[in-house]
Structure formats: C-alpha cells, structure tokens
C-alpha cells in the first residue's frame, strides 16, 4: 500500500562532505575526488566548476589535470563523511523517527502519520538549511521510497512525484540504480529513457524481462513498496577533523569549529537531546595538545547560543604551533530533566552568562576568574576558583548570606606579591618596619601565630609566624616571618 515518503540526497556525497569542511560558502573552486581502480588513480566525483572544465567521472588524473590545471584533488575523508552523515540523518530524524540510510548520501524517511502540509513545508525548507551548512541537498517526495529516490534524483532541489510518470523523462536507463543486465536489454530494445520503459504495459514487461524486469517496472510505477529498515546509530556526540593544511589563525579554526558544531547539533537533535557542556580539544603539529571545557548555563541546542561561548573561548587560544587536529564533543542531556525548580534562582540571560564566562576565562584564564572556594587545608592564602553555577540556591539559606556572621569579621586585603620589609626587633617582637606601601613604628601588636603545613612534602611545605601590627596613626597590618630564611613580609592590611 502506498504511503508518503521523502528521500534526502546529497549528490556526490564523499566529495561534497570533504569540500564542506574545506571551503567557505560562496567559494567554489574546481575539485575532484580520486579513487584507486585497477592500479590507476581515476576521478570518482567532480564538482560543478570541474565538470564545466570537462572533468568527468572515470577520467585519469593526468587527463583531468590537463583539462583543468587548477583542479584540486582530494582523497576520501572518513571524518568529514561521518560529519555530513550526521547532518543528513539529523534532518531525516527531524521529519520522522522512521528513516533508513539507503546508501551513502541518501536517506529515506517514512512520513506516515505526519500531516501533508507540515512535511511539505519542512522538506521545502531543508535545502536552504543544508546550503547554510555547506551541503547541496535534493529532496524528493513520493508514495514509495523508490519513487521518492527518483524524485530526489530529478529534484532541483525539491520535487514531488506522486503519480507523475514524467519524472523519468530524459533519464537514461544506464543509471546505477538498475541492474546492469536489465539496462543492456532496455538499450537493445532502443528505449532512450525510463519514461518509455514505464509506459510499456506490465504484461509486456513481464513476458520479455521476467520477474526482475517486472520488479523494476513496479517500483518505477509506484506499485511496489517496502517497509524501511530503521537503524539505531550509536549515540556519540562528537565530530573531529584532521586539519590539512594545518591552521595557523583563529578565523579558519572557527570556521571548522562551526562546521563541527553543526554536525554535533544534528546528532543531538536526532537523538532528541540537548547539551549543557561542550568540550573542544585540539592537537598541534608538534604534538602539543589542549582542551577547553565550556559549561553552559542552561541546556540548549540553538546554534548561535552554542557557538558564541565556543567563539569566545577558542578565539583567545594561543598555541605554539599550527593546529593539526580539532574535535568537538557535546555532553548530552535530556531536556525534560533540565527543567528548573520553582524556587531556584535562574539566570536572567543564561545564554549571555555562558558567553561572558567563556570570554573572561579566555582572557584571564581559569586561575584568575571564578567563584572562590577555600582549599581544605590551613594554608593562609589557599583557595581555588571554580566556575560559578548557573543556578543558585534559594536566597539566604545557603552560600554567602548564610555564612555571614552578625558582627563584622576582620577581612584582609593581601598584597600580591607580599613586599619584603625590614623589621626592627626588640627581643623576638617587631617594633618597627620599613618598606611596603606603608611603614612606621608599631603602636600595638598581636601575636605571634605560628602555623605550618605540608611538612611531609618537600615542595609544598610551608611555615610562617604571623603578627598583627597597628601603626601609630591607625591601620592594622599583617607581618609575616617566613621560614627558612626568616625573611619578613608585609602580607596585607586588615579592612
């Protein structure tokens, strides 16, 4: 029984996939993909500008280069194809959960249960979206998967062929979709195109071409359909690319990153997931490695919201050598589980928050910006910085307000680095110091407080004798005598 099917096709898929990652929109240079066959390098696919120069499938490399000296030659790129495949299957999954990867670059979708107006509108918009992502997409709609595939083949870029046999006008029988023996016999009969074939009566085809011919005729006329063989791909929300030639500046790296993000988003969308954490990793050609983790304030899937923090972070990355490899991974979340609670304080602008944090971290580094958290030891200046959370607990019950004592607590302003000072002692007690932002005779003194820690480790051990010293005119400072040289430092001022 006939239904509604769509077929999405990316022509010359392997070449289109690798060019998508290498060329910006609007840039189109002659390019071809090579393959080894019978010990020779032959042209497997050529793009439009190359075909205009006369480059064709099956040509030898020398011949192709003679016809088009500017021809760029490429080899198959598995990572690029995986990325383009993620995009293609993502668009298919958006139309319906029942889809089948017919062959590389072709996906059939069963639209049963969808309203016609909805799927026509959605499929109509797909080629434009694909063009933005750097792929040329053709869409065919028909009553069977096979006829939809033929419609996609004839589409420019969208075509519906429910009952119209004109779909086959001008299509040579010598297409890879039909069995070779059948094609030869059709040519022997003098059939110039498939339209002539489908206009034959079913009885005549069955009598002369047997069951195989009859099957093809039925498929072409839409009288034969089949259930789609759905696939459940392993969810790995990651895209990567080997950069050849290596990338030295931020602009091409961001271009590649945007392409990778499109692929990861398509994978997430296909699995009905969003993300709240992105991980960018890279390798330089001198084997240097790096990674940045970007936590988003709220889970999302919108491309601009995801790209803005990526751009902010990656735009500030400095490497010692050109980039040779770039990968992007998204940590998936189920969107429903991310819904906030009623009394939890969410952000006013969650998308901006992630971008601002990423920019600050890119400019200052993670050791210079974040929420302070004391380290679990007694080191005087021990603290770590953690990314501020997207959601704060309800006001006043936890965190800063909950820990604030009723009476003021002495806070310290530290001088970083602490200036070395000359201290005059009477006995063991300091009575005056010189140096630092303020100096003078000590009016009052508290201390000493002797503290040490990590004595069991040579590199991290510390020890200090602290005094609180008030100058005559006011102002209370912290003087520290540090081992092993018993040097004196002005560590800070109480405020």
């Amino acid at each position, binding site marked *: 029984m006939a239904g509604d099917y769509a077929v999405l096709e990316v022509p010359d898929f392997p070449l289109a996939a690798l060019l998508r990652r290498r060329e910006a929109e609007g840039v189109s240079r002659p390019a071809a993909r090579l393959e080894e066959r019978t010990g020779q390098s032959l042209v497997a696919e050529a793009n439009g500008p190359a075909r205009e120069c006369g480059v064709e499938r099956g040509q030898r490399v020398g011949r192709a280069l003679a016809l088009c000296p500017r021809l760029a030659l490429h080899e198959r790129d598995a990572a690029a194809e995986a990325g383009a495949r993620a995009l293609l299957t993502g668009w298919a999954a958006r139309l319906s959960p029942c889809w089948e990867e017919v062959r590389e670059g072709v996906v059939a979708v069963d639209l049963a249960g969808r309203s016609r107006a909805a799927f026509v509108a959605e499929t109509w918009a797909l080629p434009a979206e694909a063009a933005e992502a750097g792929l040329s997409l053709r869409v065919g709609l028909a009553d069977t998967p096979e006829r939809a595939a033929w419609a996609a083949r004839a589409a420019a870029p969208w075509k519906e062929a429910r009952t119209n046999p004109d779909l086959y006008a001008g299509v040579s029988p010598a297409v890879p979709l039909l069995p070779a023996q059948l094609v030869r016999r059709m040519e022997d009969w003098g059939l110039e195109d498939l339209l002539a074939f489908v206009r034959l009566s079913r009885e005549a085809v069955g009598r002369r071409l047997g069951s195989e011919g009859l099957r093809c005729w039925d498929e072409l006329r839409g009288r034969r359909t089949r259930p789609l063989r759905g696939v459940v791909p392993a969810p790995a929300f990651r895209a990567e690319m080997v950069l050849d030639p290596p990338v030295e500046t931020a602009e091409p790296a961001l271009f590649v990153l945007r392409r990778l993000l499109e692929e990861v988003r398509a994978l997430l969308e296909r699995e009905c997931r969003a993300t709240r954490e992105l991980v960018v990793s890279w390798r330089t050609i001198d084997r240097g490695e790096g990674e940045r983790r970007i936590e988003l304030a709220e889970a999302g899937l919108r491309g601009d919201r995801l790209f803005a923090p990526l751009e902010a972070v990656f735009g500030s990355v400095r490497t010692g050598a050109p980039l040779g490899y770039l990968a992007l991974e998204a940590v998936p979340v189920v969107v429903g589980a991310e819904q906030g609670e009623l009394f939890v304080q969410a952000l006013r602008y969650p998308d901006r928050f992630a971008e*601002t944090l990423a920019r600050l971290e890119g400019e200052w580094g993670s050791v210079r*910006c974040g929420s302070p958290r004391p380290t679990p030891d007694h080191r005087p200046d021990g603290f770590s910085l953690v990314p501020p959370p997207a959601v704060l607990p309800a006001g006043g019950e936890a965190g800063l307000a909950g820990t604030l004592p009723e009476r003021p607590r*002495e806070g310290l302003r530290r001088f970083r680095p602490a200036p070395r000072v000359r201290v005059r002692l009477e006995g063991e007690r300091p009575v005056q110091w010189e140096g630092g932002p303020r100096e003078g005779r000590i009016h009052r003194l508290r201390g000493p407080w002797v503290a040490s820690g990590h004595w069991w480790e040579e590199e991290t051990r510390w020890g200090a004798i602290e005094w609180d010293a008030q100058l005559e005119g*006011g102002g209370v400072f912290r003087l520290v005598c540090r081992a092993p040289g018993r040097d004196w430092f002005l560590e800070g001022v109480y*405020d």
Partner: protein
Amino acid sequence: MPPAKSSPPESFAAACARVRRTFPGAFAESPRVETEKIAPGWVGECLAGSGLAQLAADALGSPGALELWRRLAAECQRRGERVAWLDPVACLDPRSAFPEGAEAVLWVRGRGWEKALEAAEWILRDGNFGLICWDGFLLGRAEWRRIPAPRWYRLQRLAARRGLLLLAGTPPGVVLGAASRRWELPGRRGMDALFGAGEEAPAPEPVPLDRADGGAGSAERVG
C-alpha cells in the same frame, strides 16, 4: 509691517532653569558634587540605586570598606542577585572574606585597571550580575590619573540602562565625575575597632561611616 514683538530678556539662571525643564534627561546623569549622608541602613540604600556609585576610603588605614562590601554581596545574594568582584590588583583574600566559599560571587582578579574596566563592561553587558564591585582602593594615584574619564561615563550609562549597580572603590581624594552617588569612609581604625577589646571575645565596632566632605575642589577629579 509692524516689528515682531520680542520677549523681555531673561536672566541666565532663569534660562538655565528653563533648559533643565525642557531637557530633563540631559541633566539626569550630570555629576553631582554634593555627597550623601549615609544612613545606618547604608547597604539597603546603596543597593536601592543603579548606575555608577563611588566609595572612597583609605584602605591602608583599615577603614572597614571590605566589611561593607561583604555585606553588600551578602545582601545581593539574599535578594537572588549575583555579584562580580573585579579586583585589578588581586587583593581580595577569599579565605577571610568568604570562608565558606561564595557561589554567587564571580571574582576576576589581577591584570590591572585597564583589563578590569574591560571586564566590567562585559559583565554589565551580560546583565546577570546585580552588583559589580570594582575594587580600586589599592590602586595608586598615578594609575587613577591614567584612567580616561569617558570610560567611567560609558560604564555609568551601561549600568543605569540595565538597572545594575557598579560600585567603584577609590582612594580618598579621588572623585569620579561620572558617579551619581558618592560616599567616603573617613578615618583609620585600630585593633580595638577591628578585633574588639579582648582577643578571646572580639567585638568589632560597627563600621563608621560619615558624610563625605563634599570638597570636590580639594579632591582630585579623575573621571
């Protein structure tokens, strides 16, 4: 043709008053030299406004400015707001200021006044932080003189437009012309005020806040 009837000449003060009435927006952000008396509920009063405000204090005299700012931050979090602590000289000691940690506080430290102003602009544009503390108490006079005044006016407008408060801490004698509100913490404190009379039971006095002298003429105007 009779000559056009001309209106009598008005005094300069009357003309100024008329211009102010006609264009009230043009004078809303004009710098006010007079400063405000700080009420006991200064934290609430300070947070009630938006735009750029200034708190001047001699941080080397232990005036209690840090304690005030901690209270501001705590009040902000109680209200569900986040706080950005921009620290051009990296002087904050988180262990004494926030012994339990401070999730609501974003501390951006070091790299000088220029980068701290840049961070302030990014954070104001972000709009998620209700209070931005720009801790310039320990910046030297020479550095304050190098900060271009238009940068403060730009931040003032950004903060006012978004309903956020940017509180700049300055040494005494520095006047931020762009600030719509200014306070000063006069005097220095000693150990008794900080730690209380006895070491066993410290009883710090309330932070003393006085009316600023308002002497912009004697102070150094940097912005």
